Protein backbone atom coordinates (compact mmCIF):
# COMPACT_ATOMS: atom_id res chain seq x y z
CA UNK A 1 0.00 0.00 0.00
CA UNK A 2 1.47 3.29 -1.07
CA UNK A 3 -0.53 5.45 1.32
CA UNK A 4 -0.23 4.45 4.97
CA UNK A 5 -2.90 5.35 7.51
CA UNK A 6 -2.68 8.92 8.82
CA UNK A 7 -0.24 9.24 11.71
CA UNK A 8 -0.10 11.70 14.62
CA UNK A 9 -0.41 15.37 13.56
CA UNK A 10 2.97 16.78 12.55
CA UNK A 11 4.68 19.64 14.33
CA UNK A 12 4.52 23.13 12.87
CA UNK A 13 8.23 23.03 12.10
CA UNK A 14 7.91 19.80 10.09
CA UNK A 15 4.96 21.26 8.17
CA UNK A 16 7.01 24.35 7.39
CA UNK A 17 10.08 22.36 6.33
CA UNK A 18 8.03 20.01 4.14
CA UNK A 19 6.40 22.94 2.42
CA UNK A 20 9.75 24.68 1.90
CA UNK A 21 10.88 21.59 0.01
CA UNK A 22 7.63 21.40 -1.98
CA UNK A 23 7.97 25.05 -3.01
CA UNK A 24 11.64 24.81 -3.93
CA UNK A 25 11.35 21.57 -5.93
CA UNK A 26 8.53 22.74 -8.16
CA UNK A 27 10.56 24.18 -11.02
CA UNK A 28 8.38 24.78 -14.05
CA UNK A 29 5.21 23.75 -12.21
CA UNK A 30 4.36 20.28 -10.99
CA UNK A 31 3.34 21.57 -7.55
CA UNK A 32 0.46 19.13 -7.22
CA UNK A 33 2.77 16.20 -7.86
CA UNK A 34 5.27 17.45 -5.27
CA UNK A 35 2.57 18.13 -2.71
CA UNK A 36 1.04 14.64 -2.94
CA UNK A 37 4.47 13.02 -2.93
CA UNK A 38 5.50 14.81 0.25
CA UNK A 39 2.25 14.92 2.23
CA UNK A 40 0.63 11.60 1.28
CA UNK A 41 3.39 9.33 0.02
CA UNK A 42 6.41 10.28 2.13
CA UNK A 43 4.88 11.61 5.36
CA UNK A 44 1.50 9.86 5.44
CA UNK A 45 -0.14 12.90 7.03
CA UNK A 46 -3.20 12.55 4.79
CA UNK A 47 -4.62 9.68 2.80
CA UNK A 48 -5.51 9.96 -0.87
CA UNK A 49 -9.18 10.61 -0.23
CA UNK A 50 -8.46 13.58 2.07
CA UNK A 51 -5.90 14.88 -0.41
CA UNK A 52 -8.35 14.61 -3.31
CA UNK A 53 -11.18 16.42 -1.54
CA UNK A 54 -8.75 19.14 -0.50
CA UNK A 55 -7.59 19.45 -4.10
CA UNK A 56 -11.15 19.75 -5.44
CA UNK A 57 -12.13 22.33 -2.80
CA UNK A 58 -8.93 24.28 -3.55
CA UNK A 59 -9.98 24.51 -7.18
CA UNK A 60 -13.53 25.48 -6.29
CA UNK A 61 -12.29 28.54 -4.38
CA UNK A 62 -10.58 31.13 -6.61
CA UNK A 63 -6.85 31.69 -6.34
CA UNK A 64 -3.66 29.71 -6.87
CA UNK A 65 -4.71 26.08 -6.43
CA UNK A 66 -1.62 24.84 -4.65
CA UNK A 67 -1.47 27.80 -2.27
CA UNK A 68 -5.10 27.10 -1.41
CA UNK A 69 -4.21 23.43 -0.97
CA UNK A 70 -1.44 24.42 1.45
CA UNK A 71 -3.96 26.38 3.53
CA UNK A 72 -6.38 23.45 3.43
CA UNK A 73 -3.78 20.86 4.43
CA UNK A 74 -2.30 23.08 7.15
CA UNK A 75 -5.75 23.76 8.60
CA UNK A 76 -6.70 20.07 8.61
CA UNK A 77 -3.48 19.05 10.32
CA UNK A 78 -2.74 21.90 12.75
CA UNK A 79 -5.47 24.55 12.50
CA UNK A 80 -4.71 28.22 11.93
CA UNK A 81 -1.03 27.99 12.85
CA UNK A 82 -0.67 25.00 10.52
CA UNK A 83 -2.16 26.96 7.63
CA UNK A 84 0.27 29.83 8.23
CA UNK A 85 3.24 27.43 8.51
CA UNK A 86 2.37 25.75 5.20
CA UNK A 87 1.78 28.94 3.22
CA UNK A 88 4.88 30.61 4.67
CA UNK A 89 6.97 27.54 3.84
CA UNK A 90 5.58 27.35 0.32
CA UNK A 91 5.99 31.01 -0.60
CA UNK A 92 8.81 32.61 1.44
CA UNK A 93 11.85 31.38 -0.50
CA UNK A 94 10.17 31.49 -3.94
CA UNK A 95 9.11 35.09 -3.15
CA UNK A 96 12.69 36.05 -2.32
CA UNK A 97 13.98 34.30 -5.45
CA UNK A 98 11.50 35.93 -7.80
CA UNK A 99 12.23 39.35 -6.29
CA UNK A 100 15.90 38.75 -6.99
CA UNK A 101 15.25 37.52 -10.54
CA UNK A 102 12.87 40.41 -11.19
CA UNK A 103 15.39 42.98 -9.97
CA UNK A 104 18.10 41.43 -12.16
CA UNK A 105 15.74 41.39 -15.13
CA UNK A 106 14.68 45.02 -14.74
CA UNK A 107 18.31 46.11 -14.44
CA UNK A 108 19.54 44.17 -17.45
CA UNK A 109 16.96 45.30 -20.00
CA UNK A 110 17.95 44.23 -23.48
CA UNK A 111 20.88 42.14 -22.29
CA UNK A 112 20.96 38.70 -23.85
CA UNK A 113 20.14 35.85 -21.48
CA UNK A 114 22.10 32.63 -21.56
CA UNK A 115 21.09 30.90 -24.81
CA UNK A 116 21.00 27.42 -23.25
CA UNK A 117 18.44 28.53 -20.69
CA UNK A 118 15.47 28.47 -23.10
CA UNK A 119 15.63 24.77 -24.10
CA UNK A 120 16.46 23.73 -20.52
CA UNK A 121 13.35 25.52 -19.23
CA UNK A 122 11.15 24.01 -21.94
CA UNK A 123 12.45 20.55 -20.99
CA UNK A 124 11.80 21.10 -17.29
CA UNK A 125 8.36 22.51 -18.03
CA UNK A 126 7.54 19.44 -20.12
CA UNK A 127 8.63 17.16 -17.25
CA UNK A 128 6.59 19.19 -14.74
CA UNK A 129 3.46 18.61 -16.83
CA UNK A 130 4.39 14.92 -16.96
CA UNK A 131 4.73 14.81 -13.15
CA UNK A 132 1.19 16.13 -12.75
CA UNK A 133 -0.18 13.69 -15.33
CA UNK A 134 1.72 10.85 -13.65
CA UNK A 135 0.19 11.86 -10.31
CA UNK A 136 -3.21 11.67 -12.01
CA UNK A 137 -2.44 8.12 -13.14
CA UNK A 138 -1.40 7.11 -9.62
CA UNK A 139 -4.50 8.67 -8.11
CA UNK A 140 -6.75 7.08 -10.72
CA UNK A 141 -5.29 3.61 -10.16
CA UNK A 142 -5.82 3.79 -6.42
CA UNK A 143 -9.07 5.69 -6.10
CA UNK A 144 -11.27 4.99 -9.08
CA UNK A 145 -13.30 1.83 -9.23
CA UNK A 146 -16.57 1.33 -11.03
CA UNK A 147 -18.08 2.89 -14.11
CA UNK A 148 -19.50 6.02 -12.43
CA UNK A 149 -16.27 7.45 -10.94
CA UNK A 150 -14.36 6.59 -14.11
CA UNK A 151 -17.05 8.31 -16.18
CA UNK A 152 -16.96 11.43 -13.99
CA UNK A 153 -13.15 11.59 -14.26
CA UNK A 154 -13.37 11.21 -18.04
CA UNK A 155 -15.96 14.00 -18.38
CA UNK A 156 -13.85 16.44 -16.34
CA UNK A 157 -10.62 15.49 -18.13
CA UNK A 158 -12.02 15.83 -21.62
CA UNK A 159 -14.25 18.89 -21.16
CA UNK A 160 -11.53 21.01 -19.52
CA UNK A 161 -8.32 19.38 -20.75
CA UNK A 162 -9.28 18.72 -24.37
CA UNK A 163 -12.12 21.11 -25.19
CA UNK A 164 -10.95 23.92 -22.92
CA UNK A 165 -14.32 24.57 -21.26
CA UNK A 166 -14.13 26.94 -18.25
CA UNK A 167 -13.27 25.01 -15.10
CA UNK A 168 -15.85 26.77 -12.95
CA UNK A 169 -18.78 25.85 -15.20
CA UNK A 170 -17.64 22.26 -15.54
CA UNK A 171 -17.33 21.92 -11.77
CA UNK A 172 -20.71 23.52 -11.14
CA UNK A 173 -22.26 21.01 -13.55
CA UNK A 174 -20.29 17.89 -12.67
CA UNK A 175 -20.12 18.19 -8.87
CA UNK A 176 -23.90 18.00 -8.31
CA UNK A 177 -24.05 15.14 -10.82
CA UNK A 178 -21.28 13.25 -9.03
CA UNK A 179 -22.91 13.91 -5.65
CA UNK A 180 -26.26 12.63 -6.89
CA UNK A 181 -24.74 9.49 -8.42
CA UNK A 182 -22.67 8.83 -5.30
CA UNK A 183 -25.75 9.27 -3.12
CA UNK A 184 -27.88 6.99 -5.30
CA UNK A 185 -25.22 4.25 -5.26
CA UNK A 186 -24.23 4.68 -1.59
CA UNK A 187 -23.76 1.47 0.37
CA UNK A 188 -26.82 0.75 2.51
Amino acid at each position, binding site marked *: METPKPVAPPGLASLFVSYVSIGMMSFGGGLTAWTRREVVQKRGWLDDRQFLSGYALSQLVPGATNVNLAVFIGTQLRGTAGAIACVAGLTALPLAIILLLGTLYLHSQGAATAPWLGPALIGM*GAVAIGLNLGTGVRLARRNLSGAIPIGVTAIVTVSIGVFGLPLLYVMLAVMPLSLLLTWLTRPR
Partner: protein
Amino acid sequence: MSPVLLQVLILFGGLSMLAFGGGTAVLPDMQRAAVDHYHWLTAREFLDMFAISRAAPGPGSLIVVLVGLKAAGLAGALVAFVAMFTPPCIAIYVLARYWHRAAESAWRALVERALAPVSVGLTFASGLSLMRGTEHGWLPWGVTIISAALFAATEISPILLLLGGAAALLLVGS
Protein backbone atom coordinates in the same frame (compact mmCIF):
# COMPACT_ATOMS: atom_id res chain seq x y z
CA MET B 1 -0.62 54.74 0.39
CA SER B 2 0.45 56.16 -2.98
CA PRO B 3 -2.03 56.04 -5.89
CA VAL B 4 -0.02 53.39 -7.75
CA LEU B 5 0.16 51.13 -4.69
CA LEU B 6 -3.59 51.50 -4.28
CA GLN B 7 -4.09 50.53 -7.93
CA VAL B 8 -1.84 47.49 -7.45
CA LEU B 9 -3.80 46.50 -4.35
CA ILE B 10 -7.20 46.85 -6.01
CA LEU B 11 -6.19 45.20 -9.29
CA PHE B 12 -4.63 42.06 -7.79
CA GLY B 13 -7.11 41.84 -4.93
CA GLY B 14 -9.90 41.86 -7.50
CA LEU B 15 -8.20 39.42 -9.88
CA SER B 16 -7.48 37.01 -7.03
CA MET B 17 -11.20 36.51 -6.49
CA LEU B 18 -11.79 35.78 -10.18
CA ALA B 19 -8.98 33.24 -10.52
CA PHE B 20 -11.12 30.13 -10.64
CA GLY B 21 -9.04 27.05 -11.35
CA GLY B 22 -5.77 28.78 -10.49
CA GLY B 23 -3.79 31.92 -11.23
CA THR B 24 -3.47 31.26 -14.96
CA ALA B 25 -7.20 31.93 -15.38
CA VAL B 26 -6.70 35.67 -14.93
CA LEU B 27 -3.44 36.11 -16.89
CA PRO B 28 -5.20 37.66 -19.93
CA ASP B 29 -7.05 40.17 -17.70
CA MET B 30 -3.85 40.89 -15.81
CA GLN B 31 -2.01 41.64 -19.02
CA ARG B 32 -4.80 43.89 -20.28
CA ALA B 33 -4.87 45.90 -17.07
CA ALA B 34 -1.12 46.16 -16.44
CA VAL B 35 -0.04 46.73 -20.05
CA ASP B 36 -2.94 48.44 -21.87
CA HIS B 37 -4.75 50.23 -19.07
CA TYR B 38 -2.14 51.29 -16.51
CA HIS B 39 0.92 51.18 -18.84
CA TRP B 40 3.10 49.80 -16.06
CA LEU B 41 5.01 47.65 -18.52
CA THR B 42 5.18 46.60 -22.17
CA ALA B 43 3.64 43.45 -23.63
CA ARG B 44 7.15 42.12 -24.21
CA GLU B 45 8.05 42.63 -20.54
CA PHE B 46 4.86 40.86 -19.49
CA LEU B 47 5.82 37.84 -21.64
CA ASP B 48 9.33 37.85 -20.17
CA MET B 49 7.88 37.99 -16.66
CA PHE B 50 5.58 35.08 -17.47
CA ALA B 51 8.60 33.06 -18.57
CA ILE B 52 10.55 34.01 -15.44
CA SER B 53 7.65 33.05 -13.14
CA ARG B 54 7.26 29.69 -14.89
CA ALA B 55 10.98 28.96 -14.58
CA ALA B 56 11.35 30.02 -10.96
CA PRO B 57 10.37 27.63 -8.14
CA GLY B 58 7.05 28.09 -6.38
CA PRO B 59 3.53 28.96 -7.49
CA GLY B 60 3.19 30.43 -11.00
CA SER B 61 0.96 33.19 -9.59
CA LEU B 62 4.13 34.83 -8.27
CA ILE B 63 4.16 36.67 -11.62
CA VAL B 64 2.15 39.33 -9.75
CA VAL B 65 5.29 40.10 -7.72
CA LEU B 66 7.15 40.96 -10.92
CA VAL B 67 4.35 43.14 -12.24
CA GLY B 68 4.10 44.92 -8.87
CA LEU B 69 7.88 45.37 -8.79
CA LYS B 70 7.84 47.12 -12.17
CA ALA B 71 4.79 49.21 -11.26
CA ALA B 72 5.87 50.49 -7.85
CA GLY B 73 9.19 49.00 -6.73
CA LEU B 74 9.63 46.71 -3.75
CA ALA B 75 6.53 48.06 -2.01
CA GLY B 76 4.51 47.33 -5.16
CA ALA B 77 5.85 43.78 -5.26
CA LEU B 78 4.88 43.11 -1.65
CA VAL B 79 1.45 44.73 -2.00
CA ALA B 80 0.79 42.64 -5.14
CA PHE B 81 1.82 39.47 -3.27
CA VAL B 82 -0.47 40.17 -0.32
CA ALA B 83 -3.37 41.28 -2.53
CA MET B 84 -3.16 38.19 -4.77
CA PHE B 85 -2.96 35.55 -2.04
CA THR B 86 -4.87 36.88 0.97
CA PRO B 87 -8.52 36.79 -0.24
CA PRO B 88 -8.38 33.20 -1.60
CA CYS B 89 -6.45 32.00 1.46
CA ILE B 90 -9.14 33.38 3.75
CA ALA B 91 -11.88 31.77 1.66
CA ILE B 92 -10.28 28.31 1.65
CA TYR B 93 -9.39 28.69 5.34
CA VAL B 94 -13.04 29.24 6.27
CA LEU B 95 -14.05 26.28 4.12
CA ALA B 96 -11.31 24.10 5.63
CA ARG B 97 -12.38 24.93 9.18
CA TYR B 98 -15.94 24.00 8.37
CA TRP B 99 -14.73 20.82 6.67
CA HIS B 100 -12.64 19.91 9.71
CA ARG B 101 -15.57 20.32 12.10
CA ALA B 102 -17.65 18.01 9.91
CA ALA B 103 -15.02 15.24 10.18
CA GLU B 104 -17.39 12.61 11.56
CA SER B 105 -20.48 13.56 9.59
CA ALA B 106 -22.03 11.27 7.01
CA TRP B 107 -22.40 14.04 4.44
CA ARG B 108 -18.69 14.78 4.44
CA ALA B 109 -17.88 11.16 3.69
CA LEU B 110 -20.40 11.27 0.84
CA VAL B 111 -18.99 14.54 -0.55
CA GLU B 112 -15.46 13.15 -0.29
CA ARG B 113 -16.42 10.12 -2.33
CA ALA B 114 -18.16 12.34 -4.89
CA LEU B 115 -15.21 14.77 -5.15
CA ALA B 116 -12.51 12.13 -5.65
CA PRO B 117 -13.25 11.38 -9.33
CA VAL B 118 -13.77 15.10 -10.07
CA SER B 119 -10.38 15.81 -8.55
CA VAL B 120 -8.59 13.07 -10.48
CA GLY B 121 -10.12 14.53 -13.64
CA LEU B 122 -8.87 18.00 -12.70
CA THR B 123 -5.34 16.64 -12.30
CA PHE B 124 -5.40 15.27 -15.84
CA ALA B 125 -7.14 18.36 -17.20
CA SER B 126 -4.56 20.77 -15.76
CA GLY B 127 -1.75 18.83 -17.42
CA LEU B 128 -3.57 18.64 -20.74
CA SER B 129 -4.47 22.36 -20.62
CA LEU B 130 -0.83 23.26 -20.07
CA MET B 131 0.16 21.05 -23.01
CA ARG B 132 -2.38 22.81 -25.22
CA GLY B 133 -1.37 26.25 -23.96
CA THR B 134 2.36 26.01 -24.62
CA GLU B 135 4.10 25.52 -27.93
CA HIS B 136 4.64 21.82 -27.71
CA GLY B 137 6.83 20.29 -30.41
CA TRP B 138 7.26 16.53 -30.70
CA LEU B 139 10.21 16.47 -28.33
CA PRO B 140 8.52 18.19 -25.35
CA TRP B 141 5.45 16.00 -25.97
CA GLY B 142 7.63 12.92 -25.80
CA VAL B 143 9.39 14.18 -22.67
CA THR B 144 6.01 14.84 -21.02
CA ILE B 145 4.66 11.37 -21.84
CA ILE B 146 7.83 9.52 -20.86
CA SER B 147 8.17 11.40 -17.56
CA ALA B 148 4.46 10.86 -16.80
CA ALA B 149 4.87 7.11 -17.38
CA LEU B 150 8.09 6.86 -15.34
CA PHE B 151 6.65 8.93 -12.48
CA ALA B 152 3.46 6.86 -12.41
CA ALA B 153 5.05 3.44 -12.66
CA THR B 154 8.41 3.72 -10.86
CA GLU B 155 9.90 5.40 -7.79
CA ILE B 156 12.39 7.38 -9.84
CA SER B 157 13.35 10.75 -8.33
CA PRO B 158 11.46 13.65 -9.98
CA ILE B 159 14.70 15.66 -9.78
CA LEU B 160 16.34 13.16 -12.12
CA LEU B 161 13.39 13.48 -14.48
CA LEU B 162 13.66 17.29 -14.46
CA LEU B 163 17.40 17.12 -15.20
CA GLY B 164 16.76 14.52 -17.89
CA GLY B 165 14.11 16.70 -19.50
CA ALA B 166 16.40 19.71 -19.55
CA ALA B 167 19.23 17.58 -20.99
CA ALA B 168 16.99 16.06 -23.68
CA LEU B 169 15.95 19.48 -24.99
CA LEU B 170 19.52 20.80 -24.83
CA LEU B 171 21.06 17.83 -26.65
CA VAL B 172 18.38 17.03 -29.20
CA GLY B 173 16.25 20.13 -29.37
CA SER B 174 18.74 22.84 -30.19
